[in-house]
């Protein structure tokens, strides 16, 4: 069992900076994120995009900002549970929450700070009617174990790196493999594109472009996918497995079931300290909602700073909190 002072859900910029501000108050933090590396949207969606509104940085790449934040919080030795989705919370006693991830990791803390941004990144599911009834019965949104697809007739949809890479890899073991894509050109690594084109030329991959999957048919398990192609029109294809690979999209996910007041996919907070309607649970950054809310990293940093002050008073109601400037004490005096 991991124990900490502030359990932070979401290792984006706001969650990361919380570690720093909490560290100045000698509060320990542990971060949980569904993504395999820290940085949230900055790492997952736009690592190479410059950001211009971080004070003191005329321009900084999103990925660089994450690296810098990691360096800035390193002295406070935060714990990380990455690649795991925060699933449930329960109250163990008056001042202890226990969070369990989808992999079963458990973490206890008196305070939970939800810095979940847009939510958990999950595979984007094509809005094909009836698709959900075939999930795990012929429809997979990710490839966990390639062996599952040995000697099967596969249909992969998508035009990005994951669609290309899996087409290349699964072409080796599948009985038949078809890749469909909306356009004639692909994004993704040039090397991968060339490989797929070569596989198509040598008939190892059946490549159908300017096409989209529009329907699924089956009887308990998936049997056919209906494809609409620009010239050929609509036709059905018999397959064993359909693997749509359309990237990731954020969803609020299990947080929606934690008894928090939620408006339009965001958690309502008191702007005094960014507390939610549940004592000991705070929400900061893009995931919260209040009048005049601006979804800016800058504002998330401010919210994190105010929030840890309140969290300290919640954890230690009898202790006096003396505010210190880092310019006076550095960060070394705060460690440990």
């Amino acid at each position, binding site marked *: 069992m991991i124990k900490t002072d502030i359990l932070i859900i979401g290792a984006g910029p706001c969650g990361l900076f919380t570690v720093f501000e909490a560290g100045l108050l000698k509060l320990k933090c542990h971060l949980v994120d569904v993504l395999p590396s820290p940085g949230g949207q900055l790492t997952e*969606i*736009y690592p190479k*995009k410059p950001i211009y509104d971080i004070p003191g940085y005329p321009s900084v790449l999103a990925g660089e900002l994450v690296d810098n934040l990691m360096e800035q919080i390193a002295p406070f030795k935060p714990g990380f549970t990455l690649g795991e989705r925060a699933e449930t919370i329960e109250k163990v006693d008056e001042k202890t929450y226990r969070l369990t991830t989808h992999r079963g990791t458990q973490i206890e803390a008196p305070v939970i700070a939800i810095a979940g941004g*847009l939510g958990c990144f999950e595979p*984007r599911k*094509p*809005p094909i009617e009836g698709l959900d009834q075939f999930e795990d019965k012929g429809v997979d949104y990710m490839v966990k174990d390639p062996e599952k697809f040995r000697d099967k007739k596969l249909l992969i949809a*998508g*035009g*990005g790196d994951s669609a290309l890479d899996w087409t290349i890899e699964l072409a080796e073991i599948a009985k038949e493999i078809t890749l469909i*894509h*909306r*356009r004639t*050109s692909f*994004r993704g690594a040039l090397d991968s594109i060339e490989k797929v084109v070569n596989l198509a030329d040598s008939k190892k991959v059946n490549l159908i472009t300017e096409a*989209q999957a529009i329907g699924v048919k089956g009887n308990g398990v998936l049997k056919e996918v209906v494809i609409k192609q620009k010239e050929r029109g609509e036709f059905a294809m018999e397959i064993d497995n359909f693997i749509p690979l*359309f*990237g990731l*999209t*954020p*969803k609020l996910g299990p947080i929606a079931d934690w008894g928090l007041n939620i408006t339009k996919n965001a958690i309502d907070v008191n702007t005094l300290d960014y507390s939610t309607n549940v004592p000991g649970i705070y929400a900061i950054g893009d995931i919260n909602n209040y009048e005049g809310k601006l*979804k800016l990293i800058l504002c998330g940093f401010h919210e994190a700073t105010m929030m840890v002050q309140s969290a300290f008073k919640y954890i230690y109601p009898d202790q006096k909190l003396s505010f210190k400037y880092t310019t006076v004490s550095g960060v070394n005096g705060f460690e440990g």
Partner: protein
Amino acid sequence: MDNIINLTVLDREGKEHSLEAPTDMSMNLMEVCKSYELPVEGTCGGMALCASCHVYVQSEHELNEATEDEEDMLDQAFFVEDNSRLGCQIKMRESLEGLKVELAPQSE
């Protein structure tokens, strides 16, 4: 009026909305829709990194060509048609007077 163009947006219930958009504030269609509180999310803030502002362009206006980033994002969107565009990539300018678009179905 100077620096103002008129747009028509068809929402997902088929209702027509007449919008006025300034051309001198470097606004894009997603932002204009949001300012009218139309159901356009604009999740990524206009970086062509989500498809929540996906629209179908119904009028015959000459638009700026979709960049590779926009096409890449449309690859991950659904219900994509030949006239699909991301609203955030359509900059408001005078030649778009009378532009008519329809909001694409929400898919997430």
